[in-house]
């Protein structure tokens, strides 16, 4: 081993603290990349695999009831490969020993063994047969309903105990963790017996062999019309891309955000490496002088120190790659489980691995180039003749300005002026801390803005509970029945019908038309542009902002709506912020919709306001409404509760916030490593000054106070710089997040509390990060500090 190598290894080993800081600084960035890109890679593959494994249907027709004749009719179409009929019904269930009933969906397939498309997968036990149930795997985990458990269900004949004989997986599930209901599977006979209603199917899953984004809507509409002509009612249809998981778009949005934060963390790492290398060279100036005097050329020195940077990178890769992969897989298990996908074996994404190694080895070298070039340029004479206390202060106008603050105690003046002695180093540290603060505030603001947006959206509903009727009934009677339910303070009716409208590219978009009564007190949309709905039966429509953006249609223009095969022209009078997660709701006057669609093709829903809104009371009122309607012979298909919907949304975005908060913590950690590294360098560089202060009477406490104050001044300045920067950054971030995840800009709600929270964090972190170097400073004896070279 050459002497240069030996020196290199010994420097690394002798300066363990510095080596650890440098490796940690690099590792944090590589880890962040591994976590974000690795998670994306692992999830992308698992989601696509899981999606393809169920042999997805491309068209789903909702409504019914349908029967085998409808299935056979669709199967006769030349492009149809498979049709799978499915029934879904709402039931009440509980486990033995439980008091309260819970809602669940009961799904039914006619032949579980021979499914054609949109497969339900058996994971454990048997398929459901006579008088037993299978449970969906997420419900099995969350509600602790295992294979072999007994479930009590409510039937028209009273409570019945049914054994659970299997655990199955359904592809599209709203996770119970976020408030989704349990899902059970049964045979058709068992479902008929539990519900007391004999229905074959309420959904038709259709798989076609000529899926094409442009023609699939036409195919779906044709199927809808064909089935409706046979007397079946089709409420709406859904389209699924056979290559793309149904949650891919939302996940992609989250990943884009994560990737931005990952790259920002890498940038922070870069600054830290520059700082550490600068420190290393500062400490080795004398040695550089000696090496030069015995014949080392600039090239040899540059190579030696670049090799040090490369070793930092290598060590960092060794630490960060496994940690990043474990973190990514751990997060992937959590997120895939929410998407009801079982994560298989531990997966190392090859793309991410390559990226990590490449970046881990190049970024330290690139970051080290400038400090190394500056460090080795010093002449041998100058390098070896650095005696006494270094200057580096008082030469610039800025220094003289700082020095002009005279009315402060000397120790504080020392802290204040020392802060600005090494301007490049301080700038790098500040950049790191400021970026950390900006990231932190961005994420908290995003969370707050999500909350504000959810609140704003849910305020627009103006009602607490909606009960969906299975068709249109006499409005006066429906309102009378609803107002007869205790705790209901007001009731209103809306009508509903699906329609299509052409887009600029020639495709048709499916839209949900909601008929709003002219005297509605509950309908309170947020109008983005234009005006509110008029009364009467004018052909006026409020379109949603997502559609407006996609189609380029503005208030004042006319659009064509095709309802039940008949085209009609409607005047767009305004654009609203859509409250529905599908982003396809249009609002029209109740009477206008009624004049366009005969009653038998309309569905009503009854909306009520209740005395004391809340998840529990809304659920109770919904069930009382349901019972009251059914007692009078009016069929219902389900209900919606404002509090439950709000909670589900809060939970949904809460998960995203948790993941992003982990990145904020990474940012804070990187910031403090940066500060700790800077303060360590400062201590090393000022050992002689510490000795002098000691020799003129400074106690350990005075020394610690001087360094800790300096660290906290840096923290405070970084905060002062981060605050103004965080406002536009957070605005941009919430806009991007809103657009990518929900399709519209969020209501910007700057996290003022979060900013002060960051101030507290940054002050504590600064104090803690400088405490260790400061304590180290007090442990060095005066003789050593004065003899320090």
């Amino acid at each position, binding site marked *: 081993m050459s002497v240069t190598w030996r020196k290199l290894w010994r420097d690394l080993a002798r300066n363990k603290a510095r080596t650890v800081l440098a490796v940690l600084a690099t590792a944090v960035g590589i880890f962040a990349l591994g976590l974000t890109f690795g998670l994306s890679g692992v999830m992308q593959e698992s989601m696509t695999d899981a999606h393809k494994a169920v042999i997805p249907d491309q068209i789903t027709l909702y409504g019914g009831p349908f029967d085998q004749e409808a299935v056979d009719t669709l199967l006769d179409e030349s492009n149809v490969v498979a049709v799978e009929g499915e029934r879904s019904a709402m039931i009440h269930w509980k486990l033995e020993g439980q008091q309260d009933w819970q809602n669940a969906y009961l799904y039914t397939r006619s032949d579980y063994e021979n499914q054609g498309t949109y497969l339900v997968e058996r994971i454990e036990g048997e398929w459901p047969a006579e008088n037993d149930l299978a449970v969906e795997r997420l419900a099995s985990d969350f509600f602790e309903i295992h294979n072999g458990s007994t479930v009590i269900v409510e039937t028209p004949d009273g409570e019945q105990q049914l054994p659970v004989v299997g655990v199955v997986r359904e592809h599209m599930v709203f996770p119970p963790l976020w408030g989704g209901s349990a899902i059970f599977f049964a045979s058709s006979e068992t479902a008929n017996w539990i519900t007391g209603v004999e229905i074959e199917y309420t959904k038709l899953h259709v798989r076609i062999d000529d899926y094409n984004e442009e023609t699939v809507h036409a195919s779906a509409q044709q199927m809808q019309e064909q089935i409706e002509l046979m007397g079946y009612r089709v409420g709406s249809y859904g389209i699924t891309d056979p290559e793309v998981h149904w949650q891919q778009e939302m996940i992609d949005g989250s990943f884009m955000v994560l990737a931005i934060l990952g790259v920002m963390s890498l940038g922070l790492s870069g600054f830290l490496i520059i700082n550490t290398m600068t420190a290393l060279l500062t400490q080795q100036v004398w040695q550089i002088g000696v090496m030069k005097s015995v014949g080392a050329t600039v090239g040899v020195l540059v190579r030696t120190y670049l090799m040090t940077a490369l070793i930092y990178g290598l060590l960092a890769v060794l630490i960060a790659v496994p940690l990043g992969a474990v973190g990514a897989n751990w997060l992937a298990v959590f997120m895939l489980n929410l998407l009801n996908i079982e994560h298989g074996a531990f997966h190392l994404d090859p793309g991410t691995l390559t990226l990590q190694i490449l970046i881990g080895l190049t970024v330290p070298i690139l970051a080290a180039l400038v400090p190394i070039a500056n460090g080795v340029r010093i002449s041998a004479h100058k390098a070896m003749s650095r*005696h*006494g*206390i*270094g*200057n*580096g*202060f*008082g*030469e610039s106008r800025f*220094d*003289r300005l700082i*020095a002009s603050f*005279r009315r402060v*105690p*000397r*120790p504080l*003046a*020392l802290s204040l*002026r*020392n802060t600005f*002695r090494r301007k490049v180093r301080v700038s790098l540290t500040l950049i790191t801390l400021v970026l950390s603060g900006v990231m932190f505030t961005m994420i908290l603001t995003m969370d707050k803005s999500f909350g504000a947006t959810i609140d704003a959206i849910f305020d627009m509903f103006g009602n607490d509970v909606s009960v969906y009727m299975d068709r249109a009934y006499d409005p006066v009677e429906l309102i009378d029945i609803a107002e007869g339910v205790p705790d209901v303070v007001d009731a209103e009716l809306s009508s509903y019908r699906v329609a299509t409208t052409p887009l600029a590219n020639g495709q048709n978009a499916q839209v949900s038309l909601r008929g709003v009564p002219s005297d509605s007190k509950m309908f309170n949309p947020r109008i983005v542009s234009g005006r509110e709905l008029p009364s009467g039966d004018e052909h006026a429509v409020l379109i949603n902002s997502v559609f407006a953006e996609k189609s380029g249609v503005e208030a004042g223009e006319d659009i064509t709506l095709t309802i039940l095969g008949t085209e009609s022209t409607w005047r767009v009078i305004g654009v609203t912020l859509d409250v529905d997660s599908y982003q396809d709701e249009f609002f029209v006057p109740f009477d206008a919709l009624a004049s366009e669609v005969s009653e038998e093709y309309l569905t009503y829903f009854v909306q009520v306001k209740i005395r004391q809104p809340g998840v529990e009371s809304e659920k109770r009122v919904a069930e009382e409404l349901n019972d009251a309607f059914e007692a009078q012979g009016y069929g219902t298909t389900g209900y919606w509760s404002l509090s439950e919907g709000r909670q589900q949304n809060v939970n949904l975005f809460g998960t995203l916030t948790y993941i992003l908060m982990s990145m904020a913590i990474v940012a804070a950690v990187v910031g403090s490593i940066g500060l700790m590294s800077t303060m360590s360098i400062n201590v090393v560089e000022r050992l*002689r*000054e510490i*000795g*002098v*202060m*000691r*020799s*003129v*009477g*400074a*106690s*350990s*406490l*005075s020394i610690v106070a001087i360094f800790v104050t300096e660290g906290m001044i840096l923290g405070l300045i970084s905060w002062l710089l981060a605050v103004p920067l965080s406002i536009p950054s957070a605005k941009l971030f919430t806009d991007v997040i809103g657009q990518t995840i929900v399709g519209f800009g969020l209501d910007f709600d700057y996290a003022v509390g979060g900013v002060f929270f960051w101030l507290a964090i940054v002050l504590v972190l600064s104090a803690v990060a400088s405490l260790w170097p400061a304590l180290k400073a*007090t442990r060095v*004896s*005066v*003789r050593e500090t*004065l003899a320090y070279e």
Partner: protein
Amino acid sequence: MNTGRTLARDNGARINLRDVVKTYETGAGDVTVLTDVSLKVNEGELVGVVGPSGSGKSTLLNMITGIDRPTAGEVFVGEQAVHGLSENQLARWRGKNVGVIFQFFQLLPTLTVVENVMLPMDFCNMYPRRQRKQRAMDLLDQVNIADQADKLPSTLSGGQQQRAAIARALANDPPVVVADEPTGNLDRATANGVFGLFKQLVERGKTLMIVTHDRSLSDQMDRVLHLLDGQIDRDQANGNGSSGR
């Protein structure tokens, strides 16, 4: 320790070293820098310490200031057993009782000249806050650089910086002042000026110990200690000076 304290008081010596040994552990084995050094310095003495490189001059001063600790033996300055103090107690004690002057001045570069002089008063909480500035200005006036008070050290000449360092050493009015090669980095004329200041300090009753290589300066001292291989080879009195050994 009590014996030492009594002894120091009994003899009226300002500085009293008894059988001081200093050994450093090095990779090549232990190196003894001071061997059984005993020494008394009286109040108001101006003592020079001379000797070749490595003879233990700076180590001897470090024993007195508490900047370094003896391996064996006792060090008293006034009534204080210096060897018995912790690092932290030493810092406070030194700030009040010993003024230290370095070859390379060692002024803190981010503080102005007057602030450098006020720093020991702040650290040791000496003199009322309002009086510190005036006291520092008086000290700067005594060393003839009051007009440089508000400048940063980097703008001063070597002689001016050493004058500032002397003013700082006197900040808390310590009875003992030690200086390690205080004129080593100054030209002859400046060195003479600085030495003149030292003489004034002695006239005011301060006890001074100065390490120097400069024969022309050591000749003007009351007493000169010649160190060789870690021992006092010769303790020479000049003129009216007297040996304390």
